C-alpha cells in the first residue's frame, strides 16, 4: 500500500501545538498526535520517508503538519535529526558520528532520528540490512 498523497507535503494539523522547551522530536510528535486525537505511532509512521522505512523522518513534513517553518522547528526542538534522503546516507552519517565523537547508542539514535537497535546494527555490521 502506498501513501496516495506521498508526493505533496501534508496540510497543517487542525490543532496547533507549539514546541515546548526541551521537546525532542519524539516527544513533540507524541504531543502533536495526542492533541489531534491521533495515535503517536501512527503519526510517526506517517512521517516515514517511504512507507516501509521506519528509520528516516521527513522533517519537512513534520514542520508542515505543525504549521511551523522548518528552520524554526529545528531551532525549537532539541537534537533535531538531519533529513537523510535514504538509509545508506543515514548509516554513513551514524558511523562517521560514532568514529568522531564516540557518543552513546541512545545519543546517536536521538541525534540521527532513529532507534537504538538500528544504531547497534549499523555499528556492528558493515552491511546492515537496507
Amino acid at each position, binding site marked *: *500500500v502506498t*501513501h*496516495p*498523497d506521498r508526493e*505533496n*507535503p*501534508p*496540510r*497543517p*494539523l*487542525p*490543532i*496547533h501545538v507549539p514546541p515546548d522547551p526541551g521537546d525532542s522530536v519524539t516527544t513533540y510528535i507524541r504531543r502533536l498526535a495526542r*492533541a*489531534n*486525537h*491521533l*495515535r503517536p505511532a*501512527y*503519526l510517526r509512521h*506517517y512521517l516515514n520517508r517511504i512507507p516501509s522505512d521506519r528509520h528516516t523522518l521527513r522533517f519537512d513534513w513534520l514542520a*508542515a*503538519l505543525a504549521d511551523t517553518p522548518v528552520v524554526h522547528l529545528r531551532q525549537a526542538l532539541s537534537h533535531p535529526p538531519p533529513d537523510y534522503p535514504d538509509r545508506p546516507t543515514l548509516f554513513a552519517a551514524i558511523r562517521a558520528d560514532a568514529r568522531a565523537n564516540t557518543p552513546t547508542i541512545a545519543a546517536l539514535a536521538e541525534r540521527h532520528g532513529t532507534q537504538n537497535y538500528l544504531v547497534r546494527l549499523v555499528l556492528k555490521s558493515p552491511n546492515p540490512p537496507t
Partner: protein
Amino acid sequence: VVTTLLSPGPATGRPNHGDHRLLTTLQGWRAFTTRTAAPAPDLLPRQRWADLPSPERDAYDDDRIAYHVRLPMVGTPALQKIVATAGQLVELNQDASSGRRGLIVSGPAGTGKTTAITMFGKTHEARDRRGHPDNRNRIPVIYVTVPPAATPRMLAVEFARFLGLPHTRLNITYVIEAVVGVAVDAGVSLVCVDEIHNLTLATRTGGEVSDTLKYFTERIPATFVLAGIDVARNGLFTGTRGQQIAGRHNLIETAPFDDNSEWKRLAASLEETLRLQHHAPGTLARHSSYLHERTAGMIGSLSHLIRAAAIRAIKDGTEKITKKTMQQIAIDHAAETAHRTRRSASAGR
C-alpha cells in the same frame, strides 16, 4: 444584503496545494471566510478613459475584470430565509446535549443552495471569531460534500480531509474518533454538508452513509445544515432512516424565480453592481424577461451570464451589456436546454 459569489481568491495558504481555493479544506474555508468583497472600482470620466495609454488601460481593465469575476450579488429572499432559520437553530442548539435540530436546504441545481449555506457559514464563523479572537485552534465551521457513490469511510474521510487530519491506512473507527475529538476540542458549532443528493437511502451503502452522518450529528455538538438537489423527491425522507432525518431537520426549498417584479428587481440590483464605461442603466431590467428565458429563473445561471457578458464587454471594448452581448454567451446546459424548449414551443404555437 449584499453577498459575494464563491470564486477563487488570492493565494493565502500553501501555494503548492491550491487548497486555499477549496472550500472543503480548512485553509480554503478560512480564506473564504476572511476574504472581504473587493471594493467596486471607480469608473473613469469618459474622455479620460478614451485617452488612457495602453499599459494603464490594461491595468484598469484587469482590475475591473477581477471585480466582475467576483461580482457582489444581491441577497435573494430564499438566501435570507436560510440564513435566518439556520441562525435561529444554532442559537437553540447551543446548549442542547441531545436532540439538536438541523436544517435541510433542497432545490434544483443553480438555485443558490451552496451560496446560501456557505454565506451562513461565513457569517457564523465571523461571529464566533469575534468572541474568540486569539484562539487559532478554534474551528467553528466544518464544510464537507458527500462524494458520489459514497461509503461510510469516504464520508468520514471527507471530514478528516477538511480538518487536515492524515487518514491514510486508518480504519473508519479511528478516522471518526479523530474527527469527533478534534471537532469537540476545536469548538465546532456548525457543520455544513453539501451534495446530500449523493446519499441514497435505497441502497445498503447509502443507508450506512446516512447512519455515519447521523453518528456525527450525535457526537459533534453542532448544528448540521444539509443541502442537496431535490432531496425529498430523491427519497431522503423515506423509510425508518428517512423519518428520523425528517423528524430532526427543518426543510427549506429553493426554487427558480418566476418572471415577475422580484426577478426584475434582482436583474436591476445586479446591474447596479456593474462597472462598465458605456453601459446604459436599466438595460438588464428592461431585458428581464429575456434573462428569465435564458436562465430559466436560476440565480446561478443569471449570475454567470451577467458576469461573463460584463467581462466580454470589457475585453472587446464595447463596455456595455446588450441583448446581443448576452446572446453570444453560452451558459449551463440545463438553462440552455430549457431556453431551446421554450423557444421551440413558442414557435410551434
